[in-house]
C-alpha cells in the first residue's frame, strides 16, 4: 500500500479514521483514504462492505460518527449535500419524472438561479457531450436505461463538480451497453480531467476502468493500489478470492510449490498443464495431480485437480486444451514467482 500512496498535493478527497454505524452494524469502520485530483478511483467490494456508505459520506447523505472528511482541503463533515462541490450519479439514476430531460439536466443550474436561456444552452451542451443532443423535450420515462444513465451523467456534470461520485453506475445495464459506457466514462473523465470516485461490486469493471482500486470488506479497506498491483499481489485471502479467483495456500503448501514460507496466492491462469513428457519452464515446480472436475468457460477451461498430498489446485488452461477428463492424472507446472505472498496474512 505504501508503494502506491497518493501524491503529496492536496487530495481531492481525504478520509481519516471515518466511522459510520447503523445501530450495532459498523457499516464503515475506520477508513483512511486519499484520492488524488484527476484520479479515476474505484471502491470495490461485495454488498454490505461499506463502499456505498463511504460514497454517501463523501456526498453528504450520511454524516460520520467519527473521523474527518476533506474535499480539496475543505472540511466537509457537518455540511449538507447542497453545500458540497461534489455530485452524484445514482444507481437508479434518480431522474425527476415530472421534468423533461432538458429540465432534469438544467435542475442544478435552476436552483443556482441561472436564467432560462443560459441554462437551456448549458443543458443542451451537456446533453450533446453524452451524445443525447436534441432529446431535451423527452420525458425520462421515454428513454432506455442507457439513455437515462447518460442524462444522469449530464445532470451531474453540468454543475461542474470538483468530484463526481458514481454509485454502481453501470449496474443496471446489459453487458454490451456496459462495456460501451465503460470506455465512454473513461473518455469523459480523461477529457474533463475530473476526479471520479465510483463504487462497484464488479471486479472486472474496477480493474478495467480505475487508476486505483480500494477493496472494501466489512467496513474497512483491505487493499488500495493500481489494478495490476491489486490483482497480481492480493494482500489478503479476501482480496485474492474477491478480485478474480485464486488458489490460496498456507505457508507449508506455498513452500512446496516454490514460494516463501508464508500464506500465498496463486492465480489459476499462471498454472501450466504439461503435455506428457514435456519439460516445464525453467525454475518451475512440477506436480502430478488427479483431475477432479473440468468446466468449459469460453476463453479458458477450468481444471480442478488434487495432488497426492491432498492439495487442491485450480488451473485455468487455454480452452483449446482438450482431452482432459475427471479422474485422469495430469502434470502441472507452477512457474517461478507465480506463488505470491499475501502481505496482510500471517
Amino acid at each position, binding site marked *: 500500500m505504501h508503494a502506491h500512496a497518493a501524491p503529496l498535493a492536496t487530495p481531492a478527497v481525504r478520509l481519516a479514521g471515518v466511522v459510520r454505524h447503523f445501530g450495532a452494524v459498523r457499516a464503515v469502520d475506520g477508513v483512511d483514504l486519499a484520492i488524488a485530483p484527476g484520479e479515476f478511483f474505484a471502491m470495490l467490494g461485495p454488498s454490505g462492505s461499506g463502499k456505498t456508505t463511504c460514497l454517501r459520506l463523501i456526498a*453528504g447523505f450520511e454524516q460520520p460518527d467519527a473521523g474527518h472528511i476533506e474535499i480539496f482541503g475543505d472540511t466537509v463533515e457537518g455540511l449538507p449535500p447542497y453545500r458540497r462541490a461534489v*455530485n452524484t450519479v445514482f444507481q437508479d439514476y434518480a431522474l425527476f419524472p415530472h421534468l423533461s430531460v432538458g429540465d432534469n439536466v438544467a435542475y442544478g443550474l435552476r436552483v443556482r438561479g441561472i436564467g432560462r436561456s443560459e441554462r437551456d444552452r448549458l443543458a443542451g451542451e451537456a446533453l450533446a457531450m453524452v451524445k443525447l443532443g436534441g432529446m431535451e423535450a423527452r420525458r425520462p420515462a421515454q428513454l432506455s436505461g442507457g439513455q437515462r444513465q447518460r442524462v444522469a451523467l449530464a445532470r451531474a456534470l453540468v454543475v461542474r463538480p470538483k468530484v463526481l461520485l458514481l454509485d454502481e453506475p453501470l449496474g443496471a445495464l446489459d453487458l454490451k451497453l456496459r462495456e460501451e459506457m465503460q470506455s465512454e466514462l473513461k473518455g469523459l473523465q480523461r477529457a474533463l480531467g475530473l476526479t471520479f470516485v465510483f463504487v462497484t461490486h464488479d471486479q472486472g469493471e474496477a480493474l478495467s476502468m480505475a487508476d486505483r482500486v480500494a477493496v472494501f470488506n466489512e467496513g474497512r479497506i483491505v487493499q488500495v493500489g493500481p489494478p495490476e498491483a491489486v490483482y497480481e499481489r492480493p494482500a489478503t485471502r479476501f482480496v485474492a478470492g474477491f478480485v478474480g479467483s485464486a488458489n490460496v495456500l498456507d505457508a507449508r503448501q506455498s513452500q512446496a510449490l516454490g514460494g516463501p514460507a508464508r500464506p500465498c496466492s496463486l492465480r489459476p491462469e499462471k498454472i501450466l498443464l504439461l503435455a506428457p513428457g514435456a519439460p516445464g519452464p525453467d525454475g518451475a515446480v512440477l506436480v502430478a495431480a488427479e483431475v477432479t472436475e473440468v468446466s468449459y468457460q469460453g476463453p479458458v477451461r477450468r481444471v480442478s485437480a488434487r495432488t497426492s498430498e491432498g492439495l487442491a489446485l485450480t488451473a485455468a488452461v487455454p480452452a483449446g486444451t482438450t482431452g482432459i477428463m475427471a479422474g485422469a492424472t495430469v502434470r502441472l507446472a507452477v512457474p517461478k514467482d507465480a506463488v505470491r505472498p499475501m502481505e496482510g496474512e500471517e
Partner: protein
Amino acid sequence: MSLATRDLPAPREGVMRRLSDPLVRHGRLLTLLLLVPPLLWLGLVYLGSLFVFLAQSVFSIDEFSGTIVREPTTATLLELFRPANYDIVLRTIGISSAVTMLCAVIAFPIAYYAARYAGPKVKAAFYLAVMMPLWSSYLVKVYGWKLLLAKEGAIGWFAGKLGLGGALEAWLALPLVGGPSLSVSYTGMVLTFTYLWLPFMILPVQAALERVPPHLIEAAGDLGASPGLVFRTVILPLAMPGVVAGAIFTFSLTLGDYIVPQIIGTSALVLGQAVYTLQGTAGNIPLAAAFSLVPILVMALFLTVAKRTGAFDAL
C-alpha cells in the same frame, strides 16, 4: 432420487375444474362475467336514475298550480342565475374551497411525517388515529362540534384562558366570516367540515408522498437545492396528484353536504340545502335538478383546471 420416480396421482376431476378450463383459455369471458353485475348496477341503477333526475332540469314548474310542465325550456336553468340562487352557488363554492385549502394545509405535514419519518409502529398508530374518527357517527361529531363552537363552549373558554378572548371577538366581528358565535358562523362551518373530511385528504397525500423515491430528494439536494427548494421543485409536484385526489373528496363532499350547514352556520342556504328543500317541501323538482347539475359542472371544471396546471404530470 425418489422425487423423480415417484408416481403422483393426477389432480381430481370435477365440475369446477372442467368449468375453469374454458375460463382460463378465454380470459375475456372471465373479465366480462366479473364486470357485468357491477356495470349493470352502476350503469342502470345509479347513472340511469341520475340522468333521469338531471333531465328534469329542462322542465319547469307552473307557478300557480305547482305542477311540473313537461315541455323543454331553458327557463329553469336560467333561474340559477337569479341573484338569490346565484348567491347559494357562490357561497357553497367558497365554503368548499376554504375547507379544501385548510384540509390540504393541515394534512400535508401530517402525511409527510407519516410517509417519510414514521417507523412501522408509529405508522400503524397513525392509520388508526386518522381512521378512528370515521368509525363514529357523523351526527355525533357534528353535534360535538356545535358544543365546542358554542359561545360557552370549549373553544371560547380555552381562548379566554389563553387571553385570546379579544382576538376571537374581533374575528367574529368581521363581516362574512364572523357572526354572533362560532357555532352560527361560516368560520365554525368551515372548521367542522375540515375536521370531518381531513382523513380523506391525509390518506391520498400520504400515499402519494410514499411513492416519491428517497433518491429523488437526495438527488435534488446533491444538485444544490436547499430543503425549501427541494420541497417546492420535487416533493410538492410529485405529491400533487395525491393533493388533487384529496381535494376531489373534500371539495365534493362539502359541495353536497346539507346537514352541517343546518346544525352549524347561518340561516343562508348552501347547495345541498337548496336541493333538499326544493325537492321536498317546495316540490320544485326541475329547479332541484338544475341545482344538482352545479356540483357536477364545478367538479368537471376543477378537474380540467387541475389537469391544465400539470397536477397529474407525475402520475
